[in-house]
């Protein structure tokens, strides 16, 4: 009987084990950054005299580069989706002139949950959404990634127009929680 018990101990020794534990914990923060590509600095329009007497002034888009907006966004589960707003942050738009921007649909590059363009939006000193419904996503970085931005300058009230020197104003893009 004693021998049998001793054997039991010896056999059980082959299966002894013990564990150690590593706790792994980290957080992915909320992220919201936006950028314009390329970093060209200026979009240029000129308003010229009409070709014929009595005609309307001619608006010409001088710069021809393609401008794109890139963004990366990480929101909490069940958090509000985000928008990109545009507004004039510096300078003023000359009287009688209206300025518009239109974002294209997102390029094929990038992830799911990119935003949707609102369409053509008039830009003023107040923020206006141009892209909405942005979830946790990335567009890719650079020209051809994200949404292409097209700018339009129109004469909205000819009677208010005056001859002026070069007029510079800045469009500010901000990604915000809805």
């Amino acid at each position, binding site marked *: 009987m004693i021998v049998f018990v001793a054997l039991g101990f010896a056999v059980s*020794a082959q299966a002894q084990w013990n564990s150690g534990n590593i706790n*792994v914990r980290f957080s992915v923060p909320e992220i919201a950054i936006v950028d314009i590509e390329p970093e060209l600095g200026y979009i240029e329009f000129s308003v010229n005299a009409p070709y014929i007497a009595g005609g309307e002034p001619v608006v010409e888009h001088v710069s021809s580069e393609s401008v794109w907006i*890139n963004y990366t966004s990480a929101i909490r589960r069940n958090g509000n989706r985000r928008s990109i707003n545009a507004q004039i942050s510096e300078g003023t738009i000359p009287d009688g002139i209206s300025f518009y921007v239109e974002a294209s649909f997102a390029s094929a590059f990038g992830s799911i949950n990119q935003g949707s363009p609102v369409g053509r939006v008039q830009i003023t000193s107040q923020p206006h959404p141009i892209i909405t419904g942005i*979830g946790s996503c990335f567009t*890719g970085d650079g020209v051809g990634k994200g949404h292409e931005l097209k700018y339009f300058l129109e004469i909205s009230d000819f009677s208010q127009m005056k001859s002026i020197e070069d007029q510079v104003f800045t469009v500010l893009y901000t990604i915000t929680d809805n």
Partner: protein
Amino acid sequence: MKVTSVLVFLLLGLLASAQQMEVRVDGAVSFDGATFAVTEAGEDFAFGVESESSLWISIDTNDYWDKKVNPNRKWWVEVVREDLTWNDDVRLEIVRTGDGYGQKNNHKVYDGTTYQYIGENSWYFFRGRGIIYDIPIQLRLSGLSVTQGAQDFETNVILTIYDD
């Protein structure tokens, strides 16, 4: 004589049962928070994130007789993940980056020197012989994306030692 033999055998059995090898973890895993930042708008996180090298495993026994009588005991270590808050798209991997040291020259350690996935099923990690202290290990994260959203992750990596 017969009684003496039985008693000796019983004693050996008790000694064997006391040979409890244990795996001990020192240090803490740390993933640099800056790694989860995106520097350029439009980009996703970098592919893989390594932990800082501040984790060590020691294979030891608290049993005095075990250290004296059986210093060459063979063992192997398995690894498994027990999630608290996790995302299945995120891969956690482990690697042994050194051999540690022993009090005598009879210790050996093998395998585990390339990154391997830590899953929810226990899997062989590395094996060795004898008592070894401070085997450095490192963890690596991959599969993280901003598309998974802002969230907290927590899991326990369980290292279990078995007698070989």
